[in-house]
């Protein structure tokens, strides 16, 4: 078999999968987004830009998503980086494996159940009650953007920790000695060697978390209590409740386009930042 033939064979399963599960549905959504809602819901073929013109009606969902997704990504990064650094650089090797397992332990239970646990923690009888005992009254967490932020950072932290851990673990520790040998203080060594060499992991983690957050709907639904809506929640509502498929498709297409634009800007930025070989490798 020729090289080309073998390459084609390697790509066939994934290619078919993507075609059926991604490209075709996307095409359907694209076509639907120009249609109209039927009398009893669903879709009626048409060609109109009316659905897109109606987008501002869902502005709040877009606003929430576009604020909380980046914010959640940054918060997850700020918490994950020191942890990953500790695990990869400082932690004694014999503890490392157990610590890494602890990071993924939350995945053993469904995010749904864990989010309900957060309802209790952030709810009236949880943290606010605790704060009352030290004299801080009338604090509300549950059903606020803050609760949603806590929920998404909690849920997606492991996805941020792992890529960063991998890139820090791969980092040749002798480079840190070389840097010290050349007169660099520990802080400057971190800034000039450790941080740049871990950008592939940071880039991967941020992209992974950001993309997933843009499509998130479960955590805002549970911890936002119907007050903090994401685009994902709008889609659930439009497709499953009001059965307005045409409008839902227009909202979905808009989200896809926003993601395409942000991710491509982000990739450009990252590859300029590091500029070395295994930059945007997904680990």
């Amino acid at each position, binding site marked *: 078999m020729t090289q080309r033939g073998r390459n084609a064979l390697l790509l066939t399963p994934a290619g078919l999968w993507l075609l059926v599960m991604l490209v075709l549905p996307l095409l359907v959504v694209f076509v639907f987004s120009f249609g109209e809602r039927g009398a009893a819901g669903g879709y009626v073929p048409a060609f109109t830009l009316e659905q897109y013109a109606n987008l501002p009606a869902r502005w709040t969902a877009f606003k929430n998503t576009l604020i909380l997704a980046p914010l959640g990504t940054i918060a997850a990064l700020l918490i994950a980086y020191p942890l990953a650094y500790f695990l990869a650089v400082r932690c004694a090797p014999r503890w490392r494996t157990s610590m890494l397992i602890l990071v993924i332990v939350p995945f053993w239970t469904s995010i749904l159940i864990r989010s309900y646990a957060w309802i209790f923690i952030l709810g009236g009888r949880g943290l606010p009650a605790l704060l009352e005992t030290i004299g801080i009254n009338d604090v509300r967490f549950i059903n606020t953007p803050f609760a949603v932020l806590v929920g998404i950072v909690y849920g997606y932290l492991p996805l941020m920790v792992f890529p960063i851990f991998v890139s820090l673990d791969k980092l*040749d520790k*002798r*480079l840190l*000695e*070389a*840097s*010290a*040998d*050349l*007169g*660099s*203080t*520990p802080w*400057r*060594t971190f800034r*000039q*060697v450790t941080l*740049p*060499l871990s950008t592939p992991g940071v880039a991967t983690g941020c992209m992974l978390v950001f993309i997933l957050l843009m499509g998130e709907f479960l955590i805002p639904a549970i911890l936002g209590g119907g007050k903090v809506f994401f685009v994902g929640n709008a889609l659930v509502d439009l497709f499953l409740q009001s059965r307005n498929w045409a409008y839902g498709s227009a909202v979905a297409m808009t989200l896809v386009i926003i993601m395409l634009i942000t991710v491509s800007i982000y990739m450009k930025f990252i590859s300029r930042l*590091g*500029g*070395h*070989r295994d930059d945007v490798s997904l680990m």
Partner: protein
Amino acid sequence: MSVAIQTIAELRGVTKIFGDVVAADSLDLAIGEGEFLSFLGPSGCGKTTALRMLAGFEKPTKGEVLLDGQVVNDLDAHRRPVNMVFQHYALFPHLSVSDNIAYGLRQQRPRIERKIISAKVEQALETVRLGGFGPRRIWEMSGGQQQRVALARAIVNEPKLLLLDEPMAALDRKLRKEMQIELQNLQRQLGITFVLVTHDQEEALSMSDRICVMEGGRIVQVGSPRELYDTPRSRYVAGFVGTSNFFDATVTDASPNHITVQMASGRQLHGTPEIPIDTGQAVCVSIRPEQIALTRAERAAEAALPVTIHNRIFLGEHTEYLARNEALGDFLVLVPRQAELNEGTFNAGEQAFVSWDEGALLILEK
């Protein structure tokens, strides 16, 4: 070393223990300004550990490390006026060749002007013959070129002490030879003190002013290559620095400057001691192959031993013979071309005699 040379670095009773491994055991050593010193010894003898304590990466368990007369045990690596060329170079993969070399200069406070930095980097690149390679990425450089970048990155800082941990181990033989010569020239040109770690005796012999031979965490002998070759103190040193013939013996007469030893076979030999010797002591005697004369007739009745030739290897300017004496065993003999022309070639199976000057027989610690 002459007295005038100043000591730039010193180890005083330095011991380093890792868990239950004594990696360095009471090292005492003074390193003179501008000298080229090598640590020589087999794998695991503590060479790297000694070097890392000078660089500041390891703290001695006991003893003192001095730089320029100051105890620096508690001085962090980034504060020491010392630079290191790492065994696998440890070049920064995210920086260009120039930026790697400029790294040390950029850490200095107060800051050095950009123009001065780039001029120094250019000059360092020229010094290691990599002019024009500055904008390149590290992975675009060959192994030998990377080694030069590592060297340039260290020397551009004009350190008081340059530490080199087996810098040539990853290079092929030819390149290694070239780099050895270049490194030696560079050291003379810059006047920086070099401390080299190697387990290659040839490398140590050809490059160093002094060699510090180590074994199992200890320094066993320090001296110029010639001193170590001519007057090794122990069988270990004699075997590590050049090749030799070794025989076990017991001292029967320990007069100063004239020692008589008795071999296992009962034969008595005479020689000079390099170490304090007592009568009755078990020692090792060593005779260098090139100091043995191979003759047909018995020249000196007393010292010459009858041998049978077992093997002959022609090496160009020398011929190497393996000659066997019934009582003592095998002798390796190196006959210079001229001597062989005079005496004629010996064939395998032929009878001959080996003899040597009394001074050639060294009496060493076992």
